[in-house]
């Protein structure tokens, strides 16, 4: 019974959102606002139910784990943002979180997103026994990376053989990247439509498996 109601609600709200494609209307607006409100409410409920209660309130009420008072109070200080006179107190949890995240994240982020990527670009252009397509692929990758970097080098005018031609090739490389991204984006958007159609025709109307 509840499942059926849920499916009907889901289907009707899907149609309400798609009604925007015809033109903006109050039904669409209602659905849009409900999405935002329900998402926020659901997030709060889940956070309380599986985080705040079992990880903070229950252990504190059991009489052990008094150490949890420290993060508990620190977390509550966030709420002082709503009281102008003591809103400065919210800077403590923000500072604590930012400091921790930076300290923990910086070395690993540098390694994952910079050093490993640089390492990944250091490939041989040619080695004996290397198939021709790998030679070609590595050459395109290295030259393409260099050309794109030249395009973003603004301390010299983009003129001459190195900076002029390099930046022109860089634009082509970047455009090829945009083209691939656009193709994937079209695929992604159609995939989302497919998901909704499967829901409407399958779960709701039962006309497909």
């Amino acid at each position: 019974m509840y499942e059926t109601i849920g499916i009907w609600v889901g289907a009707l709200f899907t149609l309400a959102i798609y009604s925007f494609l015809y033109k903006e209307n109050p039904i669409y607006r209602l659905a849009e606002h409900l999405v935002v409100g329900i998402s926020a409410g659901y997030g709060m409920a889940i956070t309380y139910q599986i985080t705040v209660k079992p990880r903070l309130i229950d252990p504190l009420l059991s009489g052990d784990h008094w150490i949890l008072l420290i993060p508990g109070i620190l977390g509550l200080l966030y709420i002082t943002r709503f009281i102008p006179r003591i809103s400065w107190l919210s800077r403590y949890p923000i500072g604590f979180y930012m400091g921790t995240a930076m300290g923990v994240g910086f070395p690993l982020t540098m390694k994952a997103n910079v050093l490993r990527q640089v390492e990944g670009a250091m490939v041989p252009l040619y080695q004996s026994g290397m198939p021709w397509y790998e030679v070609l692929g590595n050459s395109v990758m290295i030259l393409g990376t260099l050309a794109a970097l030249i395009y973003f080098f603004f301390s010299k005018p983009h003129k001459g053989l190195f900076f002029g031609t390099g930046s022109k090739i860089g634009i082509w490389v970047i455009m090829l990247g945009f083209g691939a991204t656009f193709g994937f984006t079209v695929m992604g958007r159609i995939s989302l439509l497919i998901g909704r159609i499967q829901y409407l025709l399958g779960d709701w109307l039962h006309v497909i498996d």
Partner: protein
Amino acid sequence: MSAVNIWEKMLNIDRRWIFLGIAVVSIVPFFINFGMPVVTTTEVEDIFYYMDDLGPDNAIFVSFDFAPGTQAENMPMAVAVMRHAFHNNVPVFMTANWPLHHGMMLAAMEYVFNPSTVGFYQEVPFDDWRELREADVTAKGELVEAWENQGNQLSEGALGWVFEGRDYAAMGYAPVFNLVILGMTVSIETQYPVDAHGNSTGEMPMLQEHKSLREVDMALTSSGSGACVWWVTYAREKIGLPIAFGLTAVMATDYYPYLQAGQVIGQMGGLRGAAEYEVLLAENGITPSTDKAFTGMDVQSAAHIFIILLIIMGNLAFFAGGFHKKTLLKGGR
């Protein structure tokens, strides 16, 4: 009506006709099966064959890092890998990096364990097999035998039993998930003292055998946001945990560099990536048939052909109408 007007009309066509066209080409293939082939790619095969080599002594994480907005793309990937793991008796830890993503984890479980799903797995909740656990019957083979000896029968169409705490653990959402990943490199139980159902994770056999991410063999992040990189940053770079990406199509090109640099073992990109995994599962007899992602690929192809035709027609009208020589169309373009 002059020829120029026809071209101009084509270029100024009401976009609602295009939406209608897309709707038609997206619905028709569900009723008329074209049977377009899905060819598997290396980046998906690499995940499949890596997974296929794992067994009961291994364990994986499936991280639900997506919201309902990208469910159509991300859900089939996570479901496919879960089925593969259950088939090979590989324990699966399920996590979520955001409250909304927690719901996606629960939805995936509901789908895989639902008797109306073709090729479902029959779940046994944690409390239901407490007696056997207390009698120290926790190895999968023995456990299934003892469970069936108690008079429990596998439902028709079910591919096997999955025991909560032995075959899967629904860990769910935990806040500041990047630091949770980092914490799990030391101890999973510390980060998740209880699972999403309120069960004590310390009592779970799979937690006793795999205490930290160092004792886990792979993490798949089925992701609709940049949070997938957290797994690379905090698990791959910290302890060398093999990571597999399941990404939305929009994200796919941005994350190929991680594949090229060898930081991830493979990548499923969008619905197509999920469809490829479903094809590999079906071809290898792991699932009785392909599932929703594969079904969607006929629609995908039809929609792409329609969009390509529109682009060709648009360009034809633009050049044939001589608009490349003019500054503005009537519509202001």
